[in-house]
C-alpha cells in the first residue's frame, strides 16, 4: 500500500525528461577553488588539530592551575597575617619577656570572653606606638643626645615591660573569675541530664550558693521563705539527691512516698531567679489524707 502510495511520486517520463536536461555542472574554476581549499584544510587536519587541542588543553589547565595557585597564595598570606599579627605588635625584645598567654591567648578563652583581650591588645598597640616613637631613628645627633636617647629608650622599655606585666596579671585575674562563673553555670549549659556539681559548688554551703546553682545542686533545695528565695540543705529523703528541674521528675517519683511538684523558674545570667506563682520545682513527701 505504502509502496503503491509512493509510486505516485515516481513519474518515469517526467523524471527521464528532467534528467536529460540536467547536464549542468559546476565550472572547473570553482571546483578547483573548492578542492584547493579542501586540500589546505586536509593538511591542517593532519597536523593542526593535535597542536590546537594541545594548546587549548594547556591554556585550560594552566588557567585552572593559576587560579589554584592564586587561591593557595591568598589563603597562605591571610593565615600568615593572622598568626603573625600579635608578634608583630610588640617588638621582639619585649615579647621575649611577656608570658606566652598574653601573646597568644588560647582560642577557647577568646571565644568565651573576647572583652578580656581587647584591653591588653589596645594597650599593646599603644605600647607599640610609644615604643616605636621612642625607638624611631632621629636626625644626626651628638653623643650626649644619643646617650640621653638611649637612656630614655631604656626607661620606656622598662616602663613597657612593667605595664605589660600589670596588664597580664589583670587579665589572668579576670579570666579566672570568668572561669569560676562558667563552672557555676555548668548544669544549665550542659547537655547531659545528670547533675553537674562543680568542685567549687560542692565545697560551698547552701546559703553561699547562687539561686541558679542552688537549683542544680543535689545537696541543697531552693525554696520560698517570707517572699524570698532561700537555699537550704535538703531536709528529707525526697529532696536528697534531687535536682530542681523538670527533667528530674522521674528521678523524684521513683522514690517511695515522693511526688514531684511542678514549678517554673527563669534564672538570668546574673544568677537571680523569678518563679511563676512563686512555685519552684520540688520533690516532696506525699501528704497523706488525715
Amino acid at each position, binding site marked *: 500500500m505504502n509502496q503503491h502510495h*509512493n509510486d*505516485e*511520486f515516481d*513519474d518515469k*517520463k*517526467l*523524471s527521464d*525528461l*528532467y*534528467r*536529460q*536536461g*540536467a547536464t*549542468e*555542472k*559546476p*565550472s572547473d574554476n*570553482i*571546483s578547483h*577553488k*573548492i*578542492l584547493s*581549499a*579542501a*586540500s589546505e*584544510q*586536509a*593538511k591542517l*587536519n*593532519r*597536523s593542526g*588539530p593535535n597542536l590546537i587541542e594541545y594548546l587549548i588543553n594547556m591554556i585550560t589547565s594552566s588557567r585552572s592551575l593559576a587560579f589554584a595557585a592564586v587561591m593557595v597564595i591568598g589563603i597562605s598570606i591571610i593565615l600568615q597575617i593572622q598568626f603573625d599579627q600579635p608578634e608583630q605588635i610588640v617588638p621582639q625584645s619585649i615579647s621575649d619577656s611577656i608570658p606566652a598567654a598574653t601573646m597568644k591567648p588560647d582560642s577557647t578563652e577568646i571565644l568565651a570572653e573576647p572583652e578580656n583581650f581587647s584591653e591588653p591588645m589596645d594597650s599593646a598597640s599603644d605600647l607599640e606606638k610609644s615604643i616605636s616613637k621612642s625607638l624611631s631613628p632621629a636626625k644626626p645627633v651628638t653623643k650626649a643626645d644619643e646617650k640621653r636617647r638611649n637612656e630614655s629608650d631604656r626607661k620606656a622599655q622598662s616602663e613597657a615591660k612593667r605595664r605589660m606585666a600589670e596588664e597580664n596579671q589583670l587579665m589572668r585575674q579576670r579570666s579566672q573569675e570568668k572561669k569560676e562563673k562558667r563552672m557555676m553555670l555548668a548544669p544549665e549549659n550542659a547537655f547531659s541530664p545528670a547533675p553537674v556539681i562543680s568542685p567549687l559548688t560542692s565545697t560551698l554551703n547552701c546559703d553561699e550558693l547562687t539561686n541558679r546553682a542552688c537549683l542544680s545542686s543535689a545537696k541543697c533545695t531552693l525554696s520560698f521563705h517570707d517572699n524570698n528565695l532561700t537555699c537550704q540543705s535538703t531536709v528529707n529523703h525526697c529532696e536528697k539527691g534531687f535536682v530542681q528541674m523538670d527533667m528530674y521528675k522521674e528521678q523524684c517519683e521513683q522514690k517511695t512516698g515522693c511526688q514531684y511538684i511542678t514549678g517554673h523558674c527563669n534564672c538570668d545570667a546574673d544568677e537571680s531567679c523569678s518563679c511563676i506563682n512563686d512555685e519552684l520545682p520540688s520533690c516532696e513527701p506525699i501528704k497523706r489524707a488525715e
Partner: protein
Amino acid sequence: MQKTNTNKDSQMNDEALIAAYSDGKQSAFDIIYQRHSAPLYRFILRQCNQNISLSEEIFQDTWMNIIKNSKQFQAKSSFSTYLYQVTRHKIIDHARKKISHREDEHSNDSDALESAKMEQPDEKTQLAICIELLQQCIQKLPDEQKEAFILKQETEHTLDELARITQTTLETFKSRLRYAMKKLREWLPGECL
C-alpha cells in the same frame, strides 16, 4: 551519478569518507565532491532561478562550510542529508533577496513559455524543446513545490529524508511534491510526456 571506481576508497560510504577527510585524507574529499557536486549545483541553480553567478557563490559557500566543519560532522544523519540541509540554509540566507530581483526579470514567464512552444520543431529537436519547457515550468512552480520536485529528482533520498532536509513533515512534503508534479504534467504539452 556515481562512477564505478576500482579505488577502494570509492566503495566507502559518505560518512566514512568525511571521517577519513577530517583525519587529513584529501582523496576522501575528492570522492565526496565527485559524488555530490553536480546534483548539488543543479539543485542550487534551479532554486536560484538559473542564476549562475549566485548559484556558484552559494555552491562555493556551502562546500567551504563543509570543509571547515568536517570535524564537527557527526553521523547522526547521512552526510548527504547534512549537505543538502546546509545548502538549503545557505540558499535561504544568501539568495532570497536576489531571487526576488530575478523573479522580476522573469515576470513574463508565461510569454517565454509560449514562445518556446511556438518555436519551430525544425529549429530544435522535439526533445530539446520539451527539456527547455520543463525547465521553464519548474521555474514557474512555487518555491516550496519547486524545492520538493528538484530534491526528488536530483537526490536518491527517501521521502522521509527529504522531509527532514526541508524541515517539514512527511505528509507536507508529499503534498508539495504531488502538487508540483500535477502542475508540471498540466503545463507540459502532451507530446513531451
